[in-house]
């Protein structure tokens, strides 16, 4: 098997893991574990009152934008790195 086949197989496994999560839980809304964690705190200790609130909380749409921004910053750096490697290779100066 060629190297690229192993890569494809790996990516396929990733896709299967993520897609099967959706298929196996058709009616789930995929609550984040952070929120479930806070729910468990309420079960274990119903009297606990958070003593500090987030200074600022973005609305849903804004939150999506900011998460995307976070991913974009990282992806830009990784993409730049892979791109310059390729350019160097094509020019033959390793």
């Amino acid at each position, binding site marked *: 098997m060629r*190297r690229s086949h192993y*890569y494809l197989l*790996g*990516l396929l*496994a*990733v896709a299967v*893991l*993520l897609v*099967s*999560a*959706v298929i*196996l*839980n058709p009616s*789930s809304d*995929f*609550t*984040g*574990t*952070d929120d*479930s*964690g*806070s729910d*468990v*705190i309420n*079960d*274990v*200790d119903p009297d*606990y009152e*958070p*003593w*500090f*609130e*987030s*200074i*600022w*909380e*973005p609305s849903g749409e804004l*939150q999506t934008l*900011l*998460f*995307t921004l*976070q*991913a974009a*910053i*990282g*992806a*830009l*750096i*990784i993409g730049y*790195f892979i791109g310059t*490697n390729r350019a160097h*290779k094509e020019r033959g100066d390793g």
Partner: protein
Amino acid sequence: MHIMEGFLSLEWALFWTVVSAPFVVYGFYRVRRIIKEDPAQRTMLALSGAFIFVMSSFKLPSVTGSSSHPTGTGFSTMFFGVGVTSVMSLIVLIFQALLLAHGGLTTLGANVFSMGIAGPFVAYAAFRAMTKVRVPTPAKVFITVFLADVFTYITTAVQLALAYGPFLSSLTSFLAVFTITQIPLGIVEGILFTIFVDYLERARPDLTERILPRRVADEA
């Protein structure tokens, strides 16, 4: 692994901040030295931070019907160890606490400890041990990344069980929420990094050979 803002008492918030602080201070010192002295490692440092930014922004669905964040800390752990990884995690956690209301300032110390210190510590110890017994690189990368991810969430469960006792029964509840959901996501993260490190070893062996020496078979 984000403990929400205000969900740790003042005592625990202070405790985890004090525990995390020395690692972060040492990490800052290491980062400064790397930036000053070693251009090749500077590239790796940028990649380490970039991966933590990307991976921890995702919220991936898991077979348990919950979703959760990967940590992305395995790569940084492998190449730079715990101190540097704690600094990277601190940066991303401040970003998320201030702009996304994910985690918080009062829980920052505890979250840095789980994501940037405890998870990476276990992963780094495993990485060193596997290097000693010559585990092949792909398996080594996969296991290191998986451990950095899953142990972060185990640590969060322990932190919450300590704060909301009785310890043992609470621990079971918190582990149930965090760990099982995280296992498939740790596998996903492990596969992605195994592929990237393999690419990196071929494309830029000059960057990886400090930590992943070229194999004898490749040189022949």
